[in-house]
């Protein structure tokens, strides 16, 4: 009897310990039930910095992409014309309104079934790889005119690659300096 009582007590202890530990695990997840509020946002490189005025920058960072187009397309066009008053079309054949409208919804398109690159001469906006010279692509599209030959002093910053090589294996980024 004493032994049975002891065994029951032990079992009860074990069961309550189990429940306690389950509960503890649950409660100890420091992220559970927290609420978060958005602060920064980025799709394509350099969009907020180039096309958004200082007064709008924080707002742009907290405007959801599905609401960006209607809110920002005309503002982007104003900025585009301020950067390059002579803009007509670019190497993608986009006039100012089309180009501005495409950029205003700031998401990065990524292909799941072919090469992923910002631009490689063939593929356009199918992703962004580490080695992609995204700034020169954007300079060309903003300043280069319909065939990419306008404003040659402004269409390439002549920094074509990273200062250190990337890794061929995960995590791909080079070690810190």
């Amino acid at each position: 009897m004493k032994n049975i009582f002891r065994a029951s007590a032990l079992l009860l202890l074990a069961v309550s310990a189990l429940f306690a530990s389950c509960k503890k695990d649950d409660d100890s997840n420091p992220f559970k039930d927290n609420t978060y509020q958005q602060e920064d946002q980025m799709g394509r490189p350099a969009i907020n910095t180039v096309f958004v005025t200082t007064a709008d920058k924080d707002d742009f960072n907290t405007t959801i992409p599905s609401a960006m187009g209607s809110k920002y397309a005309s503002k982007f066009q104003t900025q585009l014309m301020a950067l390059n008053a002579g803009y007509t079309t670019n190497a993608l054949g986009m006039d100012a309104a089309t180009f501005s409208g495409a950029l205003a919804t700031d998401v990065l398109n990524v292909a799941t079934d072919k090469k992923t690159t910002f631009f490689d001469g063939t593929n356009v906006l199918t992703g962004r790889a580490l080695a992609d010279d995204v700034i020169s692509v954007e300079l060309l599209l903003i300043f280069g005119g319909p065939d990419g030959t306008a404003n040659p002093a402004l269409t390439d910053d002549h920094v074509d690659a990273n200062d250190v090589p990337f890794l061929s294996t995960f995590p791909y980024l080079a070690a810190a300096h």
Partner: protein
Amino acid sequence: MKKKNLLLTAIAILSASIGIVWAADHIDAPGVANTSSDITDFYAFQSPENSDNMVFVVNTQGLLDPTASATAAFDENVMIQVNIDNTGDNVEDLVIQAVFNDGKMSVYGPAKPSVTGKTGKVETDATVTTANISKYGSAATIGNKNGIKVFAGPRDDPFFFDLVAYQNVLAGTASGFNNPGSDTFAGTNVMAVVVEVPKSMLGSAATLNTWAVTKRKV
């Protein structure tokens, strides 16, 4: 107050004087500049190691010199999230969420978010892949589970651009870039999050719309 480095200070002075900085997304807006939630760059590409996988990179806290990198840390109150739209409406259908606690990164997802848009919750019922946050000067520590790989820690900033020359153009003190140019981001580091997932976890769309966000606990 985190230790600032000279380059960051110099760029801040320069940007204050001419009113614009063009980097990828480094110090892009007054509300996030020089904070733990400032995204510097976002990358999405097919894995160089396995064409069945997709890699997402979100870099934060840019322009860290080596001294600052040794003490830089992820903010335990900031979630770094990759949003993935696979239905073409620019609303996230899947999220990958990186959160930090006690020297460890936990990556939840890819998972359908319980809430979309500017607010958010950590999808703690989703698959979680963890890794110890890699320390400056040490080998990368990689978490690996269910075909998902994760990394967090200081890394070389992969972005390259002659920002100084561009600022000179904007300021009217130069008429164009120099050849060769000078990479303003050479020798600087970022706090990087790298996540590699099987494409099969991202749905069946031929094109995804993706973007990175940071969200702070309120």
